């Protein structure tokens, strides 16, 4: 097996999940569990694809994905933050609503054709010097800008939550919103901001699929990646480094299983497809996780409630 190809594939498969997992991380750090990632992604995927298709610019596509993600996530934000409604239900609702809207728009605009419309893919940009590192350089430093963006986001997120004042305040909102409020932090605003970041990143994750990964949009492009991202956040113990590792593990297992499938055509392919899930379970069981995440996660916040 070609190790280089495997690593490259791991990075490629992990990137969209990573972006979306970071989206969820920002959401949950503010106490908002959002299981509507699949939905946000599919809308981002469509928005990114259409804008890229029309303008020819993948970067505008990514931007559109972010805007689309924010737009869709505002439904979730308003209902769960302002109306204090159940977060899981709204995540579900987004998962039904957003892909349907995306599919509807695609159908109206592109109609029915025996071939899929294709957009321009974002070009890789090699990073000078770093790309010359033997073996790894070509694999890790000759990627599309969005891959670099995803990995920079990991670093940025780690710094933001651990070293900055705003990050500290942000975390407090997810841990104990009332305490945050008494310290003069605007909890409601922070939660809305969290939803915007979450929507933007998840939208970018979706747009990545259609502007950096494959050059077409189809209704099922997201294929459950949102739920994998959700798991990656829990697995990564709500830290950006942990989330990165979880996504890489997942990407690696997936890349590996695809290759094993090609090598062993006689074994039922479902056995290989189980590998990522079973690996995650085994890894979880081996390490154990006692940490439960932000304390006020999933709980609605009403200022005047005790």
């Amino acid at each position: 097996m070609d190790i280089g190809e495997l690593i490259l594939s791991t990075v490629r498969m992990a990137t969209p999940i990573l972006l979306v997992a970071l989206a969820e991380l920002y959401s949950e750090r503010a106490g908002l569990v959002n299981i509507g990632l699949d939905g946000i992604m599919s809308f981002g995927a469509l928005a990114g694809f259409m804008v890229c298709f029309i303008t020819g610019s993948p970067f505008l596509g990514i931007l559109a994905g972010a805007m689309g993600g924010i737009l869709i996530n505002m439904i979730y934000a308003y209902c769960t933050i302002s109306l204090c409604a159940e977060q899981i239900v709204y995540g579900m609702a987004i998962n039904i609503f957003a892909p349907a809207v995306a599919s509807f728009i695609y159908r109206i605009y592109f109609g029915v054709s025996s071939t899929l419309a294709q957009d321009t893919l974002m070009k890789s940009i090699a990073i000078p010097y770093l790309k010359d590192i033997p073996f790894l350089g070509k694999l890790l430093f000759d990627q599309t800008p969005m891959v670099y963006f995803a990995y920079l986001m990991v670093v940025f997120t780690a710094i933001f939550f651990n070293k900055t004042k705003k990050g500290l305040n942000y975390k407090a909102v997810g841990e104990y919103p009332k305490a945050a409020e008494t310290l003069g932090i605007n909890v409601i605003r922070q939660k809305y901001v969290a939803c915007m970041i979450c929507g933007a990143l998840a939208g970018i994750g979706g747009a990545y699929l259609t502007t950096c990964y494959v050059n077409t949009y189809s209704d099922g492009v997201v294929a459950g990646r949102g739920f994998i991202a959700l798991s990656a956040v829990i697995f990564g113990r709500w830290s950006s480094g942990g989330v990165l590792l979880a996504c890489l593990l997942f990407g690696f297992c997936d890349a590996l299983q695809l290759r094993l499938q090609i090598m062993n055509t006689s074994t039922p392919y479902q056995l290989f497809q189980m590998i990522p899930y079973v690996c995650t379970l085994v890894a979880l069981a081996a390490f154990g996780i006692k940490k439960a995440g932000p304390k006020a996660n999933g709980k609605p916040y009403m200022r005047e409630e005790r």
Partner: protein
Amino acid sequence: MKLKKTLMSVLVPLASVILAFVIGAIIIAALGGSPVQAVAYLFQGAFGTPNNFASTLVKATPLIFTGLCACFAYRCGVFNLGGEGQFIMGSIATCWVATTWGIEGPGAMVLCLLCGIIAGGIWGAIPGILKITRGLNEMIVSIMLNYVATLFMGLLYTSVLRDGNVPQTAAVPDATQLQRIVPSLRVTWGIVIALAVAAVVQYFLFSTSKGFQLRAVGLNMTASRFNGFSVKKYILFSFVVSGAIAGLGGSVELLGTQYRLISGYAVGYGFDGVAMALIAQLNPVATVIVAYFFAVLRTGANTMQAGTGVPTSVIDIIQALVIVLAVAGFALVKLPQIRQWLAGRGGKKTAEKKEEK
């Protein structure tokens, strides 16, 4: 006062549902369809003929099971997102027994149901055991197990249990199938089993001491431990029972509706169940009603789509709007400001009464 509150909590969601349909009607009209006609199709699809009415019940049956599955676990404070996997494992066990053991008839049917219960219970026990022994988050474990169960089912119908030239298993023999309640209608005894389970769960949770303790554990684990309830036992128990309910649901679905495993079997049932249980505020009887409402929406929507010819996605959009607006309506009446406003008039009286005391 109380009456007014109940009234509001019915009226507001109802208004929300109507609002969702109004929005849907606008979309349909914009696409050149007739909204009135569309609603007529919806009702025709859900209740138009005795068989359509029966189909709606058939459609509601698996949703009731997965809803109750979520409801039971959440009552004990554990988030079982694995209803789908447990449902599938129940179906798998049932399918295996019904089609490969060479037995037929009502006895075989009962055995199949039992095996479904056991398989679902075992699949549900896994996240429970991992939670109480290793402290693993049950949500992630149960999501992963959903994927494993779905793939395992795929493995069975494409190779191990495959029957004939398409990727599907053999059908359950006629004699083992759940029989129709009325021969001319499609609905089987499955719906009766579902309602019975709902009644039992309702009774258990609210009228027995164990159910009482389980709810206490769900609301405050620390206090429950201090008050002598074995929290870990209850967690495991709730996972097993919740898995068993889903497993039974899978068994009923296989024996009464689908008869065989095939690609796309049970997709989405698990998360539908979670949403329904939460919309029903974890009340088993309300879960049944919400599940029925979902079923009405789905069967009706199929006819509406077929009749009006709007793209299928429009129907999904309307369905999502119904959830979004109905739940928002529920949440709205619970907001302090709104409650305050509702209490507005009756308020003074209560306060004065208290002072007399």
